[in-house]
């Protein structure tokens, strides 16, 4: 386990508080996922509600509107995954911070640039961000798939639009 952590530390600049960065990124990822789930549930719930009309005084007394269709999946999804994009942007900016770190208080970039290992500086400035970016993309992709499964599962039979991937209309 310790060696794995050591390997991870090699993807960040020397002396950089990388464990804090990883914890922060994990927090941002969890927050993004939570917000995405909340937003998707709200949008999916609203869209499903719109398929029904009230027939009685109670909430459960409702009928499916004949011919009503669900909006397409992209329309339901909306900007639910936008928080992941924001997290990705922050990670990209962090890689710039990694480079600038080598000029703070000293020019350690001089040392890094004259190492026999040509890619050491690039690895330490971009490696960690790239790994976290990949985790962000993976988390977004997993949610994208899970949301689609939910979309299919919660849409009443016969209410799926002809093109579930249509970006507009539906």
């Amino acid at each position: 386990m310790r060696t794995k952590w050591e390997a991870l530390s090699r993807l960040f600049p020397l002396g950089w508080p990388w464990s804090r960065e990883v914890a922060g990124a994990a927090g941002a990822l969890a927050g993004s996922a939570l917000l995405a789930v909340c937003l998707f549930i709200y949008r999916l719930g609203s869209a499903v509600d719109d398929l029904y009309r009230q027939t009685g005084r109670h909430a459960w007394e409702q009928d499916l509107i004949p011919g009503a269709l669900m909006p397409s999946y992209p329309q339901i999804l909306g900007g639910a995954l936008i928080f992941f994009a924001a997290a990705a942007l922050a990670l990209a900016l962090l890689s710039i911070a990694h480079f600038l770190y080598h000029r703070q208080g000293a020019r350690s970039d001089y040392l890094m640039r004259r190492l026999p290992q040509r890619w050491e500086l690039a690895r330490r400035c971009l490696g960690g961000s790239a790994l976290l970016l990949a985790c962000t993309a993976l988390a977004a992709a997993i949610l994208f798939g899970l949301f689609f499964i939910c979309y299919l599962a919660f849409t009443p039979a016969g209410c799926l639009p002809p093109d579930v991937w249509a970006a507009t209309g539906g």
Partner: protein
Amino acid sequence: MLDLKNVKKTYLGGSTALDGVNLSIGPGEIVGLFGENGAGKTTLMKCILGLLRYQGEIALDGQPITPKNIARLSFATCEHSYFPALTAGAHRDFYQEHFPRFRGKRFAALMDFFQLPMGKAVRSFSTGQKNQFEVILALSQGADYILMDEPFAGNDIFNREDFYKVLLGILEPEETILLSTHLLEEVQHFIGRAVLLHQGKVAGDITTLELEEQGRGLMDFVKETYQYKADRVSRALGELTDRE
């Protein structure tokens, strides 16, 4: 042998820092690199290390300087190239990992001699200690050519004297030093050769042995090479006081 052939460097603004420098430095030499501010000393060192792009040729034993042979060069700069947040011990580990010829024994001995703490972050060191540490790293890397750019800026005279003595004591015959400094008189007994840069060109290149034979001091040589006018200050003062 470190060979520089017609090395030119022009910065983006168009200013010429190096204007066709030709220089050869052999193994074991201790060379002082002198020149006024802006003469091109720092630029020259950065070009040798590949930190700046340049025109011309720089070769180490006939080979261009690449990651394959870059470990044969080390660098101590007044800008400092360590990691301020790291301890001296962490620097040692990093150097040991990246430079196969790292001299651990020399590192430990120099750290001990200058009484530098091994477990404290380098940013907590005094200015003098930071300079010492920078030079210790350059000397311990295991390089054949050690480039030093104003390494003692901010150190007191006793500190510098100590360093010259230690340097002379520890250097092995094949180790080469290229030392850029303004402290001419201080280093004249330490160096074996003086190279003078002026406006990006080599304006003078002489061994201290030749100087001795000619009965001249290093300062005289520098003044002659730069055509320094000794009465410059008195004339300027005279003109200024006349005007007033």
